[in-house]
C-alpha cells in the first residue's frame, strides 16, 4: 500500500467526492428505473447504467491510487467524456432519441452539468505522472507525500 501514489489529496479529494456523488446518483437512479419501469425506455436506462458503472470504476481507481490506477482512470475519464458528449449532442439533435432522460442527457443538465465538467477536471488532475524520473525504482512514496 505504501508504494502506491495517493491520488486522493488536495484537489483530488474534491474530485473523488464529486465522483462519489455521481456514483451514488447514477447507480441508485439506474437500479430504481430498471427495476420499476424498464420497458418504458430500455435504451435510456441501460445508458444510465453504463454511466453508473463508469462512475463506480473511476471512483474505485481514484481511491485505490497508484500509477496503474492513474492510467486506467485517465482512460476511463476519456471514455466518460466521449460518452457525455455523444449522448449530450444526440439528445440535443434529436430529443425523441430516448424515451426518458439519462444521466448524460443534454450534457448532464439535470446534474448541474457536473457530468461534462468532471471528466475534464479529472483528466487535468490525472494527466501528470506522480512518480520519480526512474519509474521502476518503487521508491515513489516519499515523493508522493
Amino acid at each position, binding site marked *: 500500500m505504501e508504494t502506491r501514489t495517493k491520488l486522493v489529496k488536495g484537489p483530488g479529494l474534491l474530485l473523488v*467526492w464529486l465522483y462519489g456523488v455521481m456514483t451514488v446518483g447514477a447507480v441508485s437512479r439506474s437500479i430504481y428505473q430498471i427495476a420499476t419501469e424498464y420497458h418504458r425506455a430500455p435504451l435510456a436506462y441501460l445508458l444510465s447504467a453504463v454511466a453508473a458503472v463508469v462512475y463506480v470504476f473511476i471512483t474505485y481507481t481514484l481511491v485505490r491510487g497508484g500509477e496503474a490506477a492513474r492510467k486506467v482512470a485517465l482512460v476511463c475519464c476519456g471514455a466518460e467524456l466521449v460518452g457525455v458528449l455523444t449522448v449530450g449532442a444526440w439528445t440535443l439533435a434529436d430529443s425523441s432519441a430516448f424515451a426518458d432522460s439519462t444521466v448524460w442527457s443534454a450534457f448532464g443538465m439535470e446534474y448541474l452539468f457536473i457530468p461534462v465538467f468532471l471528466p475534464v477536471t479529472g483528466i487535468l488532475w490525472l494527466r501528470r505522472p506522480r512518480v520519480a524520473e526512474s519509474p521502476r525504482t518503487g521508491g515513489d512514496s516519499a515523493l508522493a507525500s
Partner: protein
Amino acid sequence: MLVALTVAVSVAALALAAWCGFAAYRDQPTKDWHFIGMAVVSALALIQVVVGIVLVGRGERASDGSVLFFSYLLGALLAVPAAGFLSLTERTRWGSVTVSAGAVVLAVLEVRLHDIWGG
C-alpha cells in the same frame, strides 16, 4: 410543514457552503466551528427525515412515490456528514472546498425533494 423544512435546510446548506467556501478562500481547513455548522445542517436534515416518515405514516403520499422520496431523504441526510468525514482526512483548503461542495449537493437534493413531494 415539509415545505418550510425544505426551505430551512436549503438556506442552512447554502450558508454552510458559503462559510466553508470562505474558509477555503482564506486557505484554511475545516475547523471545530465548521463541524458545529455541519452538525446543525445535518440535524435539520434528520428532522426532515422524521417529518417525512410521520407524514407518510399518516397517509400522505409523495407525488413521485415513496421509494424515490425516501432515497432522496437518505441522500440529503448523508451528504454533509460524508463530506465532513472526508475533510478530516484532508487538512488543507481542499477539505473546506469538499464540504462546501457537499452542502451545495444537499441544496440541490432539497430542490429535487420539493419536486418529488409536491409534483
